[in-house]
């Protein structure tokens, strides 16, 4: 899951949990606040009553009656005063039932005894619980609405902000990790961000890419230089051997030995030449501005190579339309690409085998040429490494795949051509050469 999705999910779920928790505790919370406030209110009332009694005297209220009581019409509140015996000392707030004019109501009740002169009095101040709780419900509702809208607002802000906050990360991933094609020729720009961590990540990636580029550059340079430096000594050796060969005209054993030496030197020469070619391709030393017809190209390749078909009596079929034109490529290189693949198809074919070259349009618009052979095939575990230069398996005793496929791969990469291979051991191999869309000229 992406970081942004995770954060979004987290923010949403956590806010939801908060709302849920609040809904659960809200009723008891409101009730509690209401009852505490009532207690406070009753105490305030008590103070006021005591004040007026102190001012007016207890007699003003009792006026020879047994007791004093005052309540409003709806009996939501009442205050009563009555003399009690000295022994009862009370100062409580509790919920209790009281009978007021035939109605039994539940009150929150403050009971307090106090002394004036020698007489002990009991003061009761009550408020009906229904009056106390009448605001609870709307209060709860309003609180809930306010909370939900606040949460929605904060959630929106959170989501927007995280989006902005981790946007540089997305850019880093896009520009540094997903898009770049190795080698990183186009120096990638720094992503603008004030977040230190992203800056660090971005800088590290740029540094890493630069280092890879430097290492890659060094490898290319080394290959190019080494190949150049090797050419002159090989040249000298070859000349000396050829001269020896001419001198050793009559001596057959010496000639045989010389031929073995020349073969070895020939292999060395081939390898160095191949490496040089690969390094030149990788150094962008070829111009991609040629136009060609694949049918003609394959025919030319076959003209060069068809003599080799005879060795194994291989039959050859080609089905490529004349009308296809490919543009913006290097003819010599593409020739070599086809040459190497067809050469392999012959080299690793069986007696009486066959080679078929045909075209196909992949996914509607991608032009693709398939080279199928009925050869020995490539074991699946080797399929991934056949394009690697100097992979051990490629240098095995049967000559291996040599550098021919590495060259083919380099040429393909250089042109943006994708080279795919499917193979079954003992049944054959199919190489598909898929040309990029823009290489196919409009008819």
């Amino acid at each position, binding site marked *: 899951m992406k970081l942004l999705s995770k954060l979004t999910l987290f923010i949403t779920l956590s806010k939801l949990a908060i709302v849920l928790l609040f809904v659960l505790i809200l009723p008891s919370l409101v009730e509690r606040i209401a009852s505490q406030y009532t207690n406070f209110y009753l105490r305030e009332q008590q103070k006021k009553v005591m004040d007026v009694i102190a001012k007016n005297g207890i007699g003003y209220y009792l006026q020879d009656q047994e007791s004093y009581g005052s309540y409003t019409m709806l009996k939501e509140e009442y205050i009563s005063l009555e003399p009690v015996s000295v022994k009862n000392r009370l100062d409580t707030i509790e919920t209790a039932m009281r009978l007021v004019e035939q109605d039994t109501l539940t009150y929150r009740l403050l009971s307090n005894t106090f002394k004036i002169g020698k007489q002990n009095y009991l003061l009761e101040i009550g408020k009906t619980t229904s009056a106390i709780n009448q605001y609870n419900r709307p209060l709860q509702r309003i609180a809930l609405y306010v909370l939900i809208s606040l949460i929605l607002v904060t959630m929106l802000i959170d989501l927007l902000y995280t989006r902005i906050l981790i946007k540089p990360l997305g850019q880093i991933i896009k520009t540094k990790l997903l898009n770049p094609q190795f080698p990183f020729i186009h120096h990638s720009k720094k992503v603008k961000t004030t977040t230190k961590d992203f800056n660090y990540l971005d800088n590290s990636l740029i540094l890493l890419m630069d280092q890879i580029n430097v290492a890659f550059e060094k490898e290319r340079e080394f290959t190019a230089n080494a*190949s*150049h*430096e090797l*050419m*002159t000594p*090989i*040249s*000298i*050796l*070859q*000349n*000396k051997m*050829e*001269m020896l*060969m*001419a001198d050793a*005209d009559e001596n*057959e054993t010496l*000639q*045989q030995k010389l*031929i073995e030496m*020349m*073969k070895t030197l*020939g*292999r060395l*020469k*081939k390898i160095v*030449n191949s490496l*040089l*070619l690969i390094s*030149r391709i990788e150094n962008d*030393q*070829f111009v991609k501005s040629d136009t060609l017809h694949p049918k003609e190209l394959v025919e030319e390749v076959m003209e*060069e190579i068809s*003599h*080799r078909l*005879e*060795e194994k009596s291989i039959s050859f079929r080609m089905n490529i339309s004349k009308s296809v034109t490919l543009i913006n490529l290097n003819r*010599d290189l593409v020739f*070599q690409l086809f*040459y190497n693949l067809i*050469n392999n198809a012959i*080299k690793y074919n069986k007696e009486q085998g066959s080679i078929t070259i045909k075209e196909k349009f992949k996914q509607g618009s991608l032009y693709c040429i398939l080279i199928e052979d009925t050869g020995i095939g490539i074991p699946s575990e080797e399929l991934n490494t056949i394009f690697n230069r100097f992979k051990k398996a490629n240098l095995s005793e049967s*000559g291996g795949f*040599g550098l021919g496929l590495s060259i083919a791969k380099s040429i393909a990469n250089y042109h943006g051509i994708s080279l795919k291979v499917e193979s079954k051991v003992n049944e054959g191999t199919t190489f598909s050469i898929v040309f990029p869309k823009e290489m196919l000229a409009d008819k």
Partner: protein
Amino acid sequence: MKVLIVEDEKTLAYDIEAFLSKLFYICDLAHTAKAGLEKVEGNLYDFILLDLGLPDKDGLSLLTDARKHNPDAAYIILTARGNVEDRVKGLDLGADDYLAKPFSLLELQSRMQAIARRKFAVNTHLVPLGDFEVDLQKRLVLHNNIEIDLTRKEFDLLSYLLLHNRRVLTRMQLSEHIWGSFADDDYDSNYIDVHIKNIRKKMSAFAAIDWLETVRGVGYKIKKQE
């Protein structure tokens, strides 16, 4: 013919000199661009073999300078660079041919012969080959003025053998001459033999071709022409 060899790798220069001297070329050596320029200023050459990677100066600029003094010479560039651009540049600057190192001296000879035919109009006469005649200029093989139909590669093969007659050429040397950088490195394969077989089949229909000799285990040669 006079040849100037400008090559800083002394061993290679001496080898080329020894090889060409045997073919009756008169050779001068220069190991630096400076020495090369001195030579071209004072002498006229038929061939100038020029290495591009000289220690003191780029071979291409030497080519430009040398052509002022020796405009009629045939220039062959020898280089380990094998760079396409250099090649195009060299040919643009007036070089007649281009050989990438490592090259075979036999190939050098073949190229020099071809240039000589083209440039100095020598060897235009027909070369006898047994009961046949070979027209190197028009690339034809004739028997009593009847043309024998050989493919391009078959003719290349035959003329290369003819040029180096009396010398055994290995399959590897032959395939490198004909296919150049495309020559495969499985030299034991018999595709050269296939071509030779075809040449023999086509030509023996007209006359005996005992001059084309197979040297077992080595290669082929054309015997000395009487």
